């Protein structure tokens, strides 16, 4: 901080120090990224005449949104939505019921190592497999219908909830849990008094969030024959009945909004 350094600095320009200090790495990342972008964009062949043709159809869809048709396929829509809701409720309940023990098992601070490894393996498998792929396999095995959808979403719920629950338990306050243990409680009592009160509010919040996700997912399961509104939607698109499709999408959006609103209220209550 001598005047010499000030003198050396004065009159010289100033540049913001770059985010990646090593210039070789910086430039190779930049050029690599650029090359990738050029290659990627050039490998997409867009059939512009087809797109231009489609634009009118796109516009038809947009206008359909302002004039949705709930009536002419009202029966199908109602059955589909009802089935979606049924799948959502059952899979959320069963998924959460199963994910509590698995979540407890996947928390390193309360589970013995073998249990931990098994539970973590289940979680990893469930998270790695896309819902749609699971649904395809389950439809192949169990046949068409909502049962496959229910099983798919239950399985997906287990991966999601167990992981977050386990992380929550691993981050809980040790002091509270220790205090309960110090009273001479049994393992179940310890979980009930030392662990459960700490993770319960978040568990309820996450359950509401998962209910929301399951509803959105149940809307696509029908595409592969696993029940729900997806089948009706698929048919509507296939027949270019955009007004019916718009009606279904609007129902989905409104339901999701309602669920989000509800979960906001419930989360505020349990906090």
């Amino acid at each position, binding site marked *: 901080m001598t005047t010499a350094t000030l003198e050396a600095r004065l009159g010289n320009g100033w540049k913001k120090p770059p985010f990646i200090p090593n210039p070789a790495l910086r430039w190779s990342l930049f050029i690599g990224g650029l090359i*990738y972008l050029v290659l*990627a*964009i050039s*490998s*997409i*062949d*867009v*059939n512009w005449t*087809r*797109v231009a043709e*489609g*634009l009118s*159809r*796109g516009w038809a*869809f947009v206008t359909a949104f302002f004039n949705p048709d709930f009536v002419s396929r009202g029966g199908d829509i109602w059955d589909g939505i*009802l*089935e979606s809701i*049924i*799948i959502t*409720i*059952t899979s959320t*309940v069963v998924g959460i019921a199963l994910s509590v023990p698995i979540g407890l098992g996947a928390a390193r601070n309360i589970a013995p190592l073998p249990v931990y490894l098994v539970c973590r393996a289940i979680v990893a498998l469930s998270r*790695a*497999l*896309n819902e*749609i*792929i699971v649904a*395809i396999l389950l439809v*192949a*095995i*169990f*046949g068409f*219908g*909502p*049962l496959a959808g*229910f099983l798919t979403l239950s399985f997906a719920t287990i991966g999601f909830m167990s992981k977050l629950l386990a992380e929550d338990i691993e981050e809980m306050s040790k002091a509270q849990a220790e205090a309960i243990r110090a009273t001479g409680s049994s393992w179940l009592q310890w979980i009930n008094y030392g662990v459960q009160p700490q993770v319960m509010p978040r568990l309820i919040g996450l359950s509401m969030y998962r209910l929301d996700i399951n509803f*959105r*997912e149940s*809307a*696509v399961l029908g*595409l*592969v024959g696993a*029940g729900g509104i*997806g089948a009706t*939607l*698929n048919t509507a*698109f296939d027949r*270019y009945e955009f007004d019916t*499709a718009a009606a279904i*999408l609007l129902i*989905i*959006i409104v339901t*999701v*909004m309602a669920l*989000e609103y509800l979960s906001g209220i419930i989360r505020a209550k349990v906090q």
Partner: protein
Amino acid sequence: MPVSTSPDGAKIWQLRTRNQTLTRWAAYLVAVAIFMWCWQRISEATTWFFVWDAPRIAADIGGRAWPPRWSYMDNLWGPLWDTLNMATLGTLLALVMAVPIAFLAARNTTPSALFIRPVALFIIVATRSINSLIWALLLVAIVGPGVFAGLMAIALRSIGFCAKLLYEAIEEIDEKQVEAITATGASRWQVMAFGIVPQVMPAFAGISVFRWDINIRESTVLGLVGAGGIGLQLQSSLNTLAWPQVTLILIVILAAVLVGEWVSAKVRGAII
């Protein structure tokens, strides 16, 4: 009062009053009834003969699906490249659109809380509630099958997701830093660039990588509805009941997902 008195005058401690207890039991009863009704509906819609037969079918499919047909791999490199592009370009496109929407939706940066904010919020909810597979279905109907439809589907689905997380980050910034920049006489845009953007940059980077990771997963299945990528091969293999190919494709998808997760974890670690 959670404390009641027994006939002999001793006080009995209870966690809840009698009314609370009754309400709770009623709520449980209703919940169980709803669940049982739902389960009955599923049961009615299910052909139980197939379900009892499921172990045999599963074993049968498993037997036919193994070993995977490794030679089919040559046909998968192209679709895999398409899948990567749909995820990456889709994410980039989504971010370009999500940033302005997030600024319009955040309470502290929106130009008009009365008119513009609700519109921005509606765009966020609408794009977020609709699964990318449905977007793909729609776009295939509009622009025809191919990678382009898949890319647009990924982009549209991601707008709401990215914009929601980003606008929450914008609402959580430290207002004092913004105030300090305003006090220097900076213009509205300068306050944005110097006071707000640096504060949300880490969140932005995290969200981008997070969404890219999710998009890798989602773009693997978009082909099922004709939107390009490895899902197309999956669809055609399933249609021809070529189970060894299906096995190989599933392995490749799993590998792609794991690699994507690994890359995003690395990048996130480097940024934050």
